[in-house]
């Protein structure tokens, strides 16, 4: 019976509908990263090749950053308040008295936010290409792989925060606090390519720092370094394990 499975299409459709009713979520996840790229790209100096970036223009370096930004916001800002709220207000509890498992809600949230993050990524790539002449990823498959691993890490981090936060208020606060270091490691303030070596090495051990480097390599046309992919994948596995370990339905 499909209703007892992890994925329930009616729940998924409902969560998709509800996501569309959250203008703030749509803006921050789907539009803000591209908007940031557009603002930075409209600064003339960002369109000039920079030797510190290995000859790339800053706007080129910011495309992978903006991609990651959408994923990070989706996982950290989108998921924890929603899921914690579902638990806090008894929505998961009510669902557990029906033939549908509350895990269907978790799966639907991940699917909707994951899809929104990927749409955000496509939008960023499109605007980068059309408005600022940023080359599309030279190694598309490697790029997609790095993107999906980063998405998995972000959703897993969101799920872990949802598991640990007791109330939606705490989840929002913790999600926002975690957002800044994650954005930093992804290179929002300083692209990883431009970081001093030591800092880049340290950041390379974080989920989004490693993902940023993998995306940068794939953008330049190389298959991403196994180390970077492994670090991001490792974090995804670790964070998922933590979320599974600590998540409570009520």
């Amino acid at each position, binding site marked *: 019976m499909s209703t007892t499975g992890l994925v329930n299409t009616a729940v998924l459709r409902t969560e998709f509908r509800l996501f569309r009713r959250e203008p703030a979520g749509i803006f921050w996840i789907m539009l803000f990263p591209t908007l940031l790229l557009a603002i930075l790209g409209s600064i003339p100096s960002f369109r000039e090749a920079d030797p510190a970036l290995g000859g790339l223009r800053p706007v080129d370096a910011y495309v992978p950053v903006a991609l990651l930004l959408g994923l990070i916001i989706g996982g950290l800002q989108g998921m924890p308040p929603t899921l914690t709220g579902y638990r806090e207000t008894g929505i998961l509890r009510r669902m557990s*008295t*029906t033939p549908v498992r509350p895990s269907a809600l978790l799966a639907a949230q991940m699917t909707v936010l994951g899809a929104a993050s990927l749409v955000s990524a496509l939008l960023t790539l499109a605007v980068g290409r059309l408005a600022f002449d940023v080359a599309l990823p030279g190694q598309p498959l490697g790029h997609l792989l790095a993107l999906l691993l980063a998405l998995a890490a972000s959703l897993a981090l969101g799920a872990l925060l949802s598991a640990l936060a007791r109330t939606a208020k705490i989840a929002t606060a913790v999600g926002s606090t975690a957002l800044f270091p994650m954005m930093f490691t992804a290179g929002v303030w300083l692209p990883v390519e431009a970081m001093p070596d030591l800092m880049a090495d340290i950041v390379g051990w974080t989920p989004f720092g490693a993902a940023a480097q993998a995306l940068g390599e794939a953008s330049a046309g190389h298959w991403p370094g196994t180390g970077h992919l492994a670090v991001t994948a490792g974090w995804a596995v670790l964070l998922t394990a933590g979320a599974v370990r600590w998540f409570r339905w009520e």
Partner: protein
Amino acid sequence: MAERDGRCARAPSTTTLTVMSVIDVTDLRKAYGGRTAVDGVSFSVDEGEIFGILGPNGAGKTTTAECVEGLRVPDSGRVRVAGLDPVADHDEVTRVLGAQLQESELQPKLTVREALELYASFHRRPADWRPLAERLGLTEKLTTRFAKLSGGQKQRLFIALALIGTPRIVVLDELTTGLDPRARRDTWQLIEDVRAGGVTVLLVTHFMEEAQRLCDRIAVIDQGRVAALDTPAGLVRRSAGATVISFTPSAPLDDADLNALPGLASVARKDGRITLSGTDDTVNAVLTLLARSRVTAHQLRVTDATLDDAFLDLTESPA
């Protein structure tokens, strides 16, 4: 209160010998961090019965209901719903049992119609939500988001969601909380109709009028234990002052004579009016006393005590 007695007489809807119990609770115990919530509760509910769990706040009513729904794991004891274990056979139980929970909301931006359609989709043989919504006065609110509903409207939506899977058994926790008197009466009628369709109802309440009107039998739970289990009329009968006699005597009556009445439970005097509670014997003795003393009883009223009186009597804590 002929109405109540009549209700009891027709209570067990199946008159054959094959009445099956669909909910069986045996010596259920549940504690939360050392504090005992349910302390050895046993009862069984027959198919097609409306069974009430009545008790003061914190008596263990909701915990008992949650163990039946499979939302909580009992510390010890046995719970069976349609022969199934609500914890081990949770999936099967959700197909036969509908639950209306306390303090359980919906997504704030979900509309009434979307909620009804979503929850209907969870079940194999869902009820048509349109007549159900109409019955519960939700037709005007179908496009309203959950967060914009009033307390009573939310409550009616929860009742609809509990019934939408056409369950064999429905557990209703504080059914009419937040409903105005008219909506409350409409809801009671709906529950009676649902039962008439063969559904077994477990009703958790602290509302006497509701229990008295709907329930075939009631388990009064106090401090985690079953203090009494009987029909509403039976509960009233077994309380000490089952009959209440009140009148305004034309001449003073002696206290000693009143206190000597057989079966007397209490005497009260207020504004020249005397109110006695006791048994049928007390009634006869009062009439004899009045005749013998040549006192006329103005506005003489003899009434049954209410379930309220019985409830207070039964849940008086010995502490």
